């Protein structure tokens, strides 16, 4: 009995040791450091669970989309169109609901389908026509934001105003129906978006790390040719990752529309660089084959807390926040690159030693 326990213990310790060598562990340390520093600077203001949650809530779209973009980047692609799909989703919901008079949930469903189709179109060009993902999604970002503007022209409401007045409260004054997605607090504390985010993290984790599909995504990213030879339809796998990103952007668009009570064609148009920052900071290689959902999620939260804590504790204005986040990104990627450079000779040495001697 004792022995079994020891074995379990040592396995646990080994797992822990393995974890400390992982990038996610470093992110966890950074997150911890943020809490310590911000807490020490201004404990009273910083340590309010409610405001921490609402700060994450402000960036929930970036958090959600970055989860899905991780899939694309693991296959070796990149997606810079997701942020324009956010606006497209929003305006499609608005026009279908207010001008076409559809039920709000039907409108939401149709918007998500539209977004998935947009992702599928770009994915098709990337995987079946062999165009570089950066170019296709660059074109996609123009196309889908342009379409969003055109669709907003179909509405009676002027484009710059945004369609508002979505079904919100019941007779008791509680948030129900569509607006509940953006405003409801679970236990009067946790915004419902955060619950959705956590559910999405779990789903994406299972999909990427525990399913056959996830294995294939990794294999396509590591070596597409080998993946093809082992019978994986790499084209379909690559296309499907863009569809997933489209759906992710649509979910973000729905939540954002519900939160601000305004369907606008240019919602989320400035998210692109932040999304990629989160994915990259999460340890995903832009060349493909490496990355994890947990890393992306942690990195997104690290950025959220930084954006929340810096203005609150050090009085840095909100406009200046690009600077520290940029510095953090540059330092992190530079340090990782330098470490990788130093590690290379070590590997070569090991290789030479492991060669059979004759």
């Amino acid at each position, binding site marked *: 009995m004792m022995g079994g326990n020891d074995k379990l213990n040592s396995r646990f310790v080994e797992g822990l040791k393995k974890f400390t060598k992982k990038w996610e562990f470093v992110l966890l340390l950074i997150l911890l450091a943020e809490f310590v520093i911000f807490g020490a600077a201004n404990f009273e203001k910083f340590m309010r669970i409610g405001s921490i949650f609402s700060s994450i809530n402000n960036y929930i779209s970036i958090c959600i989309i970055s989860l899905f973009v991780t899939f694309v980047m693991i296959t070796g692609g990149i997606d810079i169109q997701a942020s324009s799909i956010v606006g497209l989703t929003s305006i499609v919901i608005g026009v279908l609901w207010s001008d076409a008079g559809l039920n709000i949930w039907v409108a939401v469903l149709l918007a998500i389908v539209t977004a998935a189709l947009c992702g599928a179109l770009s994915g098709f060009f990337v995987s079946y026509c*062999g165009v570089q993902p950066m170019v296709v999604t*660059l074109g996609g970002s123009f196309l889908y934001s342009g*379409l969003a503007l055109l669709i907003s022209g179909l509405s009676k409401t002027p484009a710059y105003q945004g369609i508002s007045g979505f079904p919100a409260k019941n007779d008791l004054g509680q948030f129900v129906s569509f607006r509940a997605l953006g405003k409801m607090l679970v236990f009067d504390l946790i915004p419902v978006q955060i619950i959705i985010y956590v559910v999405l993290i779990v789903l994406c984790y299972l999909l990427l790390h525990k399913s056959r599909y996830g294995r294939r995504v990794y294999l396509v990213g590591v070596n597409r040719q080998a993946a093809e030879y082992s019978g994986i339809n790499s084209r379909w796998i690559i296309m499907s990752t863009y569809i997933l990103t489209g759906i992710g952007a649509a979910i973000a668009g729905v939540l954002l529309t519900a939160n601000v009570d305004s369907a606008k064609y240019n919602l989320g148009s400035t998210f692109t660089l932040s999304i*990629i920052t989160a994915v990259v900071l999460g340890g995903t290689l832009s060349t493909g084959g490496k990355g994890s959902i947990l890393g992306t999620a942690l990195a997104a939260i690290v950025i959220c807390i930084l954006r929340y804590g810096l203005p609150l504790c050090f009085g840095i204005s909100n406009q*200046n926040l690009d600077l520290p986040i940029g510095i953090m990104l540059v330092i992190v990627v530079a340090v990782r690159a330098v470490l990788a450079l130093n590690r290379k000779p070590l590997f070569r040495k090991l290789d030479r030693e492991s060669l059979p001697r004759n």
Partner: protein
Amino acid sequence: MKLIKRFLKIRWLSSLAFLAVMFIITGLVNPGFFTYSNIIECFNSSVVFTLLAVGVAFVIMTGEIDVSIGSTMGLAAAIAGMLAQRGQSWGLMIVYSIVIGLLIGLVNGYGVAVLGVPSLIFTLGTTGIIRGLVYVFSGGKTTENFAGTFTNFGSQTLFGQITIYYTIVLVIVIVTHLLLTQTRSGKYFIAVGDNVGGATLIGIPVTATKIVAYVLCGIFAAISGVAFASKYGQVNIVAGAGYEMSAIAACVLGGISLSGGQGNLAGAAIGAVIMSTISRLLVFIGLSSDFDNTIKGVMLISIVVIDALMQRRSAETARRERLVARASGSAR
């Protein structure tokens, strides 16, 4: 037929043909477009984009990318605006912007070429830093109320209604284009982008070439900031955000491959004219400028998809011809 085929192979010429077709279509729909000043105005108004696109073309040719040009432009524009408020001369602004561009280019080049960080990610990081610096320098306020001479300078025309700015840009583009296509070290950019390993083996200084590409890109972007400030007469804190994507799109339209090693600067300049005139042409056709982005997107995607399919087809034909030649050779 053969002539057409050869013509299509010179990628920047087909971009020029595309631009001409765009003009002709606009003219057919609305004959009022076909005046000298309308067409010249299309070129004049593309100064900022031309500088950005030509600058980033250096980097794209070497197979890397730079998304920090938009914020570099914003920073240079804000500083140029501040100098103009103090009544400083145009030459000083150019000196300042060259220094800014040089520094930013060196940082980007060091990160990408020496440290080996993927270029998209590194320049993404510097984008944030530079944008932050814009806030710091301008104090979060829009820089405006320039001295009049500075903004008037941009609209002065030299000969045949071409503005001074476009003349300068045209000279720069032609000179750099010739340098890149006719000189030995000018061809390094394409060589590095085409095949890094091969370039290293024949003794091309790959790291230095990439750093030079980033420095040139930074300087061009910073100078475009001066042109921006002089054109619009005010610089807000997010000036230039999103311009990087349009500049990259212009390069693609000009026949520069994003995987490097293909294209030239003339193509980038023509692509920039295409990108910046679409909204102007739409007005003449009678569509609202709401169609602007949709048409840009459709154009960009269809051009690259057609290009990719054509390249695949020509590779397939070449392979088949090789097989046929081999088969007939062994039959003998």
